[in-house]
């Protein structure tokens, strides 16, 4: 296991290094002079020169790359050209908001997807199976931005059941200000017992979380169904049947646990994708997460911020993959052998 761990970690580091180089390359080909973007269009030549000096834009590219890597490692992710704040501070506020949204969505997707998958496998080729297959297929095929707009128009606009946008009611910041611990609003509100903000946040969370959950729920249902059908033909399930257990008991008591193994690793992978998928949803619901930050950065050609978001998401993806592989290596020795 140790050797597997070392090899897998080495691979992950290699990928991270590649990601850094690629991000740097993309940043360098962005049109427009970063110095002009920073100093403003009316800057004097002296101010421009100073900005170039400050960001090392006159150095040769390899030197710039080295400096970039050195800064990243020491925790300096650059200064946003738009907010004038360190990118790392911006991300420390935006990322938890995205985590909140995606976390809620995944919980929802698991709570809905696994039971539906079981239902479909239990009544394979019957009507419930058809319904679940159709529903999950629609859920993975729906354009999220459109679903977000539709739910927003219907449930927030026309029916007024939910707030249209935002993370919680803005006036709560003055009436019951939130003490930040984790920067995840719902968690902080829970820890500090700030009920007004907690209920407001949960209320605001319903619609965007539903939209983000659609894709993972569909995939999890399909996966649970497939894995369960596979397991239901295995010897331990047949033994359960021979002992006189009903088909539902066979599935839920004997087949479900081994079938959940691939489902769990799928969830870790889906997480990173849901994060990016959430970008579009954040744009519609004005959720103060990474997606909105990325959209605003892109609009103002804020290269350090764009690079920061790209790096962060890529790191999350690499980490999720690593966790999946290590967990599988732990559970299934055959994985380690390769």
């Amino acid at each position, binding site marked *: 296991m140790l050797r597997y761990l070392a090899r897998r970690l080495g691979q992950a580091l*290699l*990928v*991270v290094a*590649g*990601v850094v180089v*690629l991000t740097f390359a*993309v940043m360098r*080909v*962005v*049109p427009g002079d970063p110095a002009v973007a920073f100093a403003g269009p009316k800057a004097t030549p002296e101010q421009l020169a100073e900005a170039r000096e400050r960001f090392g834009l006159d150095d040769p590219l390899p030197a710039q790359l080295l400096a970039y890597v050195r800064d990243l490692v020491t925790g300096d992710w650059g200064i946003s050209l738009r907010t004038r704040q360190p990118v790392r501070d911006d991300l420390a506020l935006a990322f938890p908001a995205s985590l909140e949204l995606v976390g809620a969505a995944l919980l929802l997707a698991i709570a809905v997807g696994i039971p539906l998958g079981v239902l479909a496998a239990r009544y394979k080729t019957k009507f419930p199976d*058809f319904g679940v297959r159709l529903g999950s*297929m*629609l859920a*993975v*095929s*729906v*354009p*999220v*931005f*459109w*679903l977000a*707009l*539709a739910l*927003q128009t219907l449930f927030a*606009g*026309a029916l007024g059941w939910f707030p249209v946008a935002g993370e919680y009611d803005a006036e709560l910041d003055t009436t019951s200000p939130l003490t930040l611990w984790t920067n995840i609003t719902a968690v902080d509100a829970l820890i500090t017992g700030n009920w007004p903000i907690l209920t407001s946040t949960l209320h605001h969370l319903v619609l965007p979380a539903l939209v983000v959950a659609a*894709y993972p729920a569909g*995939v*999890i249902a*399909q*996966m649970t169904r*497939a*894995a369960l059908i*596979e397991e239901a033909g295995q010897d331990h399930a047949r033994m359960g049947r021979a002992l006189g257990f009903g088909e539902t008991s066979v599935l839920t008591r004997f087949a479900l646990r081994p079938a959940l*193994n*691939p489902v769990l*690793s*799928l969830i870790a992978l*889906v997480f*990173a*994708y*849901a*994060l*990016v998928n959430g*970008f*579009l949803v954040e*744009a519609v619901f004005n959720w103060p997460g990474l997606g909105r930050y*990325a*959209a605003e950065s*892109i609009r103002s050609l804020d290269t350090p911020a764009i690079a920061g*978001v*790209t790096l962060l998401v*890529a790191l999350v*993806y*690499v980490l999720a*993959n690593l966790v999946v592989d290590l967990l*599988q290596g732990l559970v*299934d020795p*055959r*994985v380690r052998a390769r």
Partner: protein
Amino acid sequence: MTHHAPPLRRSLPRLLPDRFAAFGAVLIVLVVLAAVLAPWLAPYPLDEVRPLERLRPPSAEHWFGTDQVGRDVLTRILYGGRTSLFIAASVLAVSALAGVTLGVVAGYAGGWLRDVIMRVTDIFLAFPALLLSLALAVVLQPGVNTVILAIAVTWWPWYTRLSASVAASIATRPYVDAARCLGVPAPLIILRHVLPNSLTPVLVQLSLDAGGVILTAAALSYLGLGAQEPTAEWGLMVQQGQTLFTTNWWVVTFPGLAILLTAFAFNVLGEGLRGALDIRSGGARQERATQEPASAERPRP
């Protein structure tokens, strides 16, 4: 090729009982026909603007209503299908060509060459498609060609992974050994034996991916980084009509349904094909020794 009849042909009859897949196939035929025949099917000329008929609700003259400048929504949806299918076909062609070439070479050669190719692949896989597309779409001029390039850059590694694992298993088959013993040069072995026998899972994956590409392209256009006016494109139509959703629902609803229907059709067909051909390989899944549905293997960006 002669040693293994392509399983696609053998299992086509098995595909027919799967009503689900058949349904998907019929849908795709309809969508493609609608797009190809758009100039003949469309009730109005593509860019005909009638300022006096702005935002008319669906009626006998305008089945799907008219948009904010008085264009027929149905007409634009039919033409939009051409844009979407063109983008999907281009992206898949480019990424399959690049990805399968690299993958087959990596799988057949093995050793350090495989390691290098697979590590580079891993790096590109770490970028969610939408994110890298976003960054690239900023760098390049927004437009259909940029969308194609941006998505293709993030899409090819999946085909490399897939075909590398298939090719690696084919490289150990006796007929490949035989060819090697006869002194057939490696490029010829790859071209004549490894490549043709690696293609079936790739074809299934292409069908599964078409939906994902269409959704990603629509998302980029929705963000204003894809197709630009006056191109008819579904994501762009949603973006331009989004403020009108409450008052003029048809402007946004029908383009969204068009995206949903098309992505759905490809996903259903792909799932059906995968089931009928009993393909469980596919890079990530094979390496993980699990049995995920292929659509699960690659959650869409």
